[in-house]
């Protein structure tokens, strides 16, 4: 007979702790991994589907889901504190939750990028650092399907996983005062896109004409944690065409 434990669905293990009086953190792992990523996504979905009284919003990250609530609006028996009441509700909601299969394959968000030139002044540097040609850097950067682990740092800024380590490059010794919105950069083992003009020390390899932050939309961030992203190269002319409102999807 098979080991009965093996046939039981594997429950998600987690810890709960407060972040002040108005937030609860669900910790679902300690390292960045596809397994932890799936648990975080499953947990965030479950909690968002069943908001409790006083629930405000939640923020998924690499290994955590942070739940914000209004402690003055948490209802029911709040012994000893509203945090404990919320923790019990979260435990109930997560009861029996399984890590789940890999999330249903959603279509990747396609981001056109004009690499090099004025848009990517550090493309040469990234190539030289890794003994590659600029064309090889572009090929390696456009190859993978990246995973959006979280949105943070700036509105719509995606922390992407999956970059090929052959194009890793250190941050600039002196950060630039203003990096134009849409700039695609590499910092260490990460790649990302700047949604707003901000100062920053990333090596810039190109720019996308697609807006990552759209404050007029009810869903202002183009990307969400859990999405997948692909970059594809466009010419400077195509970049200008995009900017003028031509939105030809590949």
């Amino acid at each position: 007979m098979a080991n009965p434990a093996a046939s039981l669905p594997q429950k998600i293990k987690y810890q709960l702790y407060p972040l002040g009086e108005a937030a609860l953190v669900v910790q679902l792992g300690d390292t960045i991994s596809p397994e932890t990523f799936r648990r975080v996504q499953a947990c965030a979905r479950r909690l968002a589907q069943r908001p409790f009284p006083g629930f405000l919003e939640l923020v998924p990250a690499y290994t955590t889901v942070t739940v914000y609530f209004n402690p003055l609006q948490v209802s029911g028996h709040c012994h000893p504190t509203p945090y404990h009441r919320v923790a019990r509700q979260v435990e109930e909601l997560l009861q029996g939750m399984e890590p789940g299969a890999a999330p249903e394959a959603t279509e990747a968000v396609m981001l056109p990028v004009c690499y090099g030139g004025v848009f990517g002044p550090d493309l040469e540097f990234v190539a030289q650092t890794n003994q590659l040609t600029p064309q090889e850097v572009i090929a390696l950067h456009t190859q993978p399907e990246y995973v959006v682990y979280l949105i943070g740092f700036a509105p719509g800024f995606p922390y992407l996983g999956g970059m090929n380590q052959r194009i890793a490059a250190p941050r600039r010794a002196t950060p630039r005062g203003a990096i134009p919105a849409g700039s695609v950069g590499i910092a260490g083992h990460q790649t990302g896109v700047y949604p707003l003009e901000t100062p920053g020390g990333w090596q810039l390899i190109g720019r996308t004409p697609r807006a990552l932050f759209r404050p007029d939309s009810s869903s202002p961030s183009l990307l969400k944690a859990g999405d997948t992203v692909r970059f594809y190269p466009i010419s400077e002319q195509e970049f200008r065409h995009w900017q003028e409102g031509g939105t030809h999807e590949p």
Partner: protein
Amino acid sequence: MSLRVEKAGLLTTVQDLGRWGYQQQGVIVGGAMDPVAHRVANWLVGNAQEAATLEFTMLGPSLRFAADHLIALTGGSFAAQINGKAVPAWRPLLVRKGALLEVGRARQGARGYLAVAGGIQVPLVLGSASTYLRAGIGGLKGAPLQEQAMVPCPGSSNPEFPPLGWETGHQNLERTTWFVRPAWYQGFRQELVIRVLQGPEYGWFFRESQRAFWQQPFQVTPQSDRMGYRLAGPALGLAEPRELLSTAVTFGTVQVPPQGNPIVLMADHQTTGGYPRIGQVIRADLAALAQVLPGQRIRFQEVTLEEAYRLLYEQERHLAQLKSALSLKRKR
């Protein structure tokens, strides 16, 4: 029906109680740095606490009134005049059409609030009027007040914020002597004690750093703004090198970058951060912290989560009493 900006002040922005619901898209909550002063200012003029106010910093604005308006000033102690005559804070004031309100320097505290009956009517962005400076959205074109700009104030014509019962009392309001002021604004101490919970990564720090955090004062440096206060004091270190994976942070989170000087995150904090969180300022002390100026010193005092809630309830009870006292005033 609006206020013309004659002098903008140092940093004057439109704020409300924040832009909730978009943190997972990287959009900060923002809102008033001192939510207590913001709420009381609104109650004083009969507004809902969520109505937008003007938040000014260290040096206030000068505003010309295009119509009669009922206003209130709260927060830090600022020298304020209407048509050259000094006026008090923490009470409703009737300002006549054509009058000039001049808010000067802060005598005590750092931030003040101006509420106008009927609210300040700017287009809501993602459900909030708050100015989000870094993203350039909310408030007046996403920016601080500029000279000659118009601050739209519908006054009593705004059906959403009727200044209940105030109109009939206009004459009386010009002679009012009463005021309301939460007790903790009566004295601003040189060395403020801020009560703090242990943060999630408190245990990562050296014992000596933990002790120093509670026992030694920290100075708020000039590199402090609506995003956060950078503190100078004993350097705090991790017992062993560990890296925190970016995770959510909130108003009042005390994080420690590698060089060891803590940063207290304030209203415009980023949604996520990657520095170990040694502490979390309790909600009841955020208003006091918002009134601290660069150069001032603060001390952290440890409290438990239970005490933090008790102090929050106490503050809310005090505010509820104040609010109901105000509604009694209105009915007379």
